[in-house]
């Protein structure tokens, strides 16, 4: 799956940020907790020292219940078997809050009036749950801020820093070598982008030059061929009249005649392609496709008779398109003749015209054709066939010119060519 360049970088940042936060959150928790406990312990020691210094010498056994009564967090308890400072965690039930509260407690053996007691001081701790919750919240807020920041920065970057890049991209995407819309790449103040633009411009210029000279070559070649072809044709026509030939000689002449016809068609179709490419047919007008098909239907029926092909047309609704009349006619004729040419004896051709598309379906070879090569020049599905391999290329060119889409499909043993209007 491809992603936008900026998404890629921001994704990397994002993953890193999440990773750091996830790893640092427990770390942060432990460190906070340790600092907190250390601090609590320190306070406990301080209180113990205060007690030892100010109270332990004056305290009498009699005072102990009173002491315990008024001191919430420092108690004098029965002696325990401890030898020195003993820190531990414990829970006391808080009857007001109705829950167990965590405490850090320091027990320490003391002597009051010669009798051993245990000094017990405690500090209420923040509940672990509360701590984790607040840390999680804190980190979540940090994460959110990071994301927001990253998003805004990326947006800014794409708007400013990457702007020339996207502009170049847009220009190249719109560029078509057979159209005269040369991309105008603007100068930027970023060296890399300038270099990119210059390279692209050079590349496009060279390709356009090559493309134009090639196109010119095809056109010139086709033009130059016309005169010798005309001579060839005329000479054969003259030769045919020049006397009695045997049937075998007649067949040779006929075959010569067919070949020159074929050359002629090939040449005319090449010229037609060049002309379409040179925008010689740019003039458009409203055309009724129904009328266009009906106008030539008789001709196509005539052509289909040799193979006894039945033609069914479904031209239910009137369809008007804005196109060049010559090209529209050529498009329809090519598709129609194609459906007849590649058909089988007693086959059928179905023509369906709707507002969205014009579709030609025909019986034929019971195998689907290679759809990817169909519309390229001189790609013939069957090399022995008479077609010159330009018909569908011309169809594609005309469709492209009108921003129509040509599609081929093979279903239920029918080859279907559709032009999406």
């Amino acid at each position, binding site marked *: 799956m491809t992603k936008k360049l900026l998404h890629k970088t921001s994704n990397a940042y994002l993953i890193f940020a999440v990773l750091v936060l996830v790893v640092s959150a427990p770390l942060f928790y432990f460190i906070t907790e340790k600092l907190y406990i250390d601090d609590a312990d320190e306070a406990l020691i301080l209180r113990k020292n205060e007690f030892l210094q100010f109270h332990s010498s004056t305290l009498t056994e009699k005072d102990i219940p009173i002491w315990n009564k008024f001191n919430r967090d420092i108690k004098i308890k029965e002696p325990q078997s401890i030898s020195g400072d003993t820190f531990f965690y414990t829970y006391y039930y808080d009857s007001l809050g109705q829950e167990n509260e965590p405490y850090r407690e320091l027990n320490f053996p003391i002597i009051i009036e010669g009798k051993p007691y245990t000094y017990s001081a405690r500090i209420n701790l923040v509940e672990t749950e509360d701590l984790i919750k607040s840390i999680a919240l804190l980190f979540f807020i940090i994460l959110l801020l990071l994301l927001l920041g990253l998003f805004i920065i990326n947006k800014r970057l794409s708007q400013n820093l990457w702007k020339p890049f996207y502009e170049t991209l847009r220009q190249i995407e719109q560029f078509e070598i057979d159209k005269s819309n040369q991309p105008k790449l603007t100068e930027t103040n970023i060296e890399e982008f300038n270099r990119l633009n210059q390279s692209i411009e050079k590349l496009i210029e060279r390709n356009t030059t090559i493309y134009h000279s090639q196109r010119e070559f095809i056109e010139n070649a086709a033009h130059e061929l*016309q005169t010798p072809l*005309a001579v060839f044709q005329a000479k054969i026509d*003259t030769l045919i*009249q020049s006397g009695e030939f045997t049937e075998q000689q007649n067949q040779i002449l006929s075959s010569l005649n067919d070949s020159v016809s074929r050359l002629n068609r090939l040449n005319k179709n090449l010229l037609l392609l060049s002309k379409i490419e040179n925008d010689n047919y740019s003039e458009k007008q409203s055309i009724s496709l129904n009328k266009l098909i009906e106008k030539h239907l008789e001709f196509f029926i005539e052509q289909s008779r040799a193979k006894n092909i039945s033609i069914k047309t479904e031209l239910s609704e009137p369809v008007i398109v804005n196109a060049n009349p010559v090209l529209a006619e050529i498009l329809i004729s090519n598709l129609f003749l194609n459906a007849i040419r590649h058909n089988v004896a007693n086959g059928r051709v179905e023509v369906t015209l709707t507002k969205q598309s014009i579709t030609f379906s025909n019986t034929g070879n019971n195998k689907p054709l290679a759809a990817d090569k169909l519309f390229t020049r001189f790609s013939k599905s069957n090399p022995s066939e008479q077609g010159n391999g330009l018909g569908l290329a011309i169809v594609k060119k005309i469709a492209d010119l009108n921003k129509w889409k040509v599609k081929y499909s093979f279903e239920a043993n029918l080859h279907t060519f559709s032009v999406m209007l």
Partner: protein
Amino acid sequence: MKLLLIEDEKELAESIKNYLTGNSFVCEWVNNAMAAIDKISTYEYDCILLDLMLPDGNGFEILKELKRQNKTEGVIIISAKETLESKIEGLQLGADDYLTKPFHLSELLVRIQALIRRKNFKGNNLVAYNELEIDILSKTVKVNSRKIDITKKEIDLLLYLIGNENKVLSKSAIAEHLSGDMADMLDNHDFVYAHIKNLKNKLKDAGCSDYIKTVYGLGYKWQHD
């Protein structure tokens, strides 16, 4: 009938001249614009065949010259140029027809005949051949003065055959003539056979002699025995 052929390609010009001369035409040939203007200023022609690309100028100049001299000769442009613009320009400048190279000589001949018919017999477009009579305007055919049932295509074919009397017409030439603008896309000429057969039968049924001869392996020919 007098024709002027303006064409710089010698081989082609000779073939055209040769073909037309056999069909009651006198054909003069020039290979440049200067000579052409010379000829048209001096003589009258029934039809002028004009190539657009000449060594010393453009065929359009000759059309303008004809107009300037108020000449009414019919002009058929024969050109390798096949752009819509040159066609339109040619016709606007007074040419009557436009034939793109390469073409069949038989096609050129019937175009000339049609042009001369249009020019000479204003409205009276009848072609007669022995017992046959074709009215081009009303699209009717009579055999021995009796109208026969015939399609437009068959009349077209009939005119083409009669126009090229005694010439062998190849199947592809007939096919290209019948399919007109579609010819460039057509690669199957089998339909010619069906048309010829139908026409032959219709003429025979009406009592017309069988003028359509089959030239085996090659095509057909209209010939009076």
